[in-house]
């Protein structure tokens, strides 16, 4: 089967909380998928499991049929929801770092995007604002020619004006055959680029659908459907 990411009875609990409740999921290649859910619904947990940053309590998550490991990390480009940049490198330094470790990293791409966002490659990461750091991280992640991009809240900390540019960056830089998983609760901003959506709530997959189906059958926008499904 030609799925790039697959979860089989994936279960994860933290002390006093069930974060993922036996999730089954299959994401095909070449799609842009929105992983949508309210805060604390299990989006980040699912993504961290796929990247091997958490160990499942049950079931498994497979990338191209393999458990997270060296081989999957070569083909997955991951943007976490937090800043993972150290405070002692310059932008140039971190670009060299990515270039040294990821065979699919394209430095020209990174420098090109930095230029367009007016970020000086010689600036130290330490002196940057949170939003600028997020932009640098996104540039690093999108400068890889990966097969699966997993972006956890890619636009959460960025001002609305830069959001469109970032979405364009995301769209403009991923290769045809690649898959994009974007987790967010800012649905209106990303809705226009999504092919499929996965609604997740309290560790359960509530709905998986293509965006076209939602528009045709429900006659609703994804945002409207989301508000309905997750009504408090």
């Amino acid at each position, binding site marked *: 089967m030609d799925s790039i990411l697959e979860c089989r009875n994936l279960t994860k609990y933290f002390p006093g909380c069930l974060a993922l409740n036996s999730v089954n999921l299959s994401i095909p290649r070449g799609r842009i998928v929105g992983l949508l859910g309210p805060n604390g619904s299990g989006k980040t947990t699912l993504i*961290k499991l796929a990247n091997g940053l958490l160990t499942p309590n049950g079931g498994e998550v497979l990338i191209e049929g393999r458990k997270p490991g060296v*081989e999957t990390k*070569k083909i997955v480009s991951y943007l976490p929801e937090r800043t993972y940049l*150290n405070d002692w490198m310059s932008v140039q330094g971190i670009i060299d770092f990515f270039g*040294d*470790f*990821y065979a699919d990293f394209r430095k020209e791409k990174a420098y090109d995007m930095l230029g367009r966002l007016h970020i000086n490659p010689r600036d130290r990461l330490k002196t940057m604002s949170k939003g600028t750091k997020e932009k640098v991280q996104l540039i690093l992640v999108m400068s890889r020619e990966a097969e699966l991009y997993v972006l956890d809240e890619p636009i959460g900390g960025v001002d609305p004006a830069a959001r469109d540019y970032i979405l364009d960056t995301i769209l403009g830089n991923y290769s045809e055959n690649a898959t994009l998983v974007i987790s967010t609760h800012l649905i209106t901003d990303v809705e226009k680029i999504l092919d499929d959506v996965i609604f997740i709530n309290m560790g359960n997959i509530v709905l998986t659908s293509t965006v076209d189906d939602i528009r045709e059958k429900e006659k609703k926008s994804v945002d409207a459907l989301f508000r309905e499904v997750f009504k408090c």
Partner: protein
Amino acid sequence: MLGNLIKYEIRATRRIFLPLYGLILVFALVNKIFISANYDEFGGSVPFTVAMTIYVLLIAALFVMTLVVLIQRFQKNLLGDEGYLSFTLPVKTHMHLDAKTIVTVMWTVLSLIVAALSIFLLAVDANTLQQMREGWPSFLRAYEPFGASFYGVLAEVIILALFSIAEVTLHIYLSIAVGNFSSRHKLLAAFGVFLGVSVVEQVVTSLLMNAGVRASIFSDFFVGFGSMRYGWDASAPVLAGFLGVQIAYTLVFGALFYFFTDWILSRKLNLE
């Protein structure tokens, strides 16, 4: 990939160690100038006292920093936010451990060398240099009769020192990795684990020693050691054997710490 990890580990840590090394050597020289300029006049003077105090504090800082950097690099770079990048690099988990242990041993050895060098700078003058130049051949001659076995023992001492540094480093890594399971008080838990493992290590050591004494394994050693005064030739093999056992012992504990830490990081990882 290991080479890359080591390269960036050195880059991340050298900005702390290199300036410290520079400062220590500079202050050793400053103190040297005070001493050689005119000891009587400067001996009790305020600038000299200040310079000397700074030098001593810098040496203390060097060894404290070696420990702090060792802990911080593991905690922040692997188990903190930076771990999100470290653990998504396409490298085997044990390579992080390898790189960090190697670089820690490297800085510890360099710190010891710099400290020794600074004391040498402080103490040396034209007279001692002259004496050393003259004394060196006779120093070598003095060890000549010991022959190859002397260098064998020397090599063992150096290997034991390096392994011991690595073993203590891995002991601390294991403690931090286990302490990380605690949802609160991670450092306190790590400290508890460190002490607990130390106690276990001590108990195992003394049990083995007791068993050894009871089985008279050591009698040869003590007899041999006693014969030290009768000559190197008789005691060198015994000393070499004893050091060999020590090395093996350190290796076994180091390997246990290494594999257990690697197991936690690759099988039980849960980054916050």
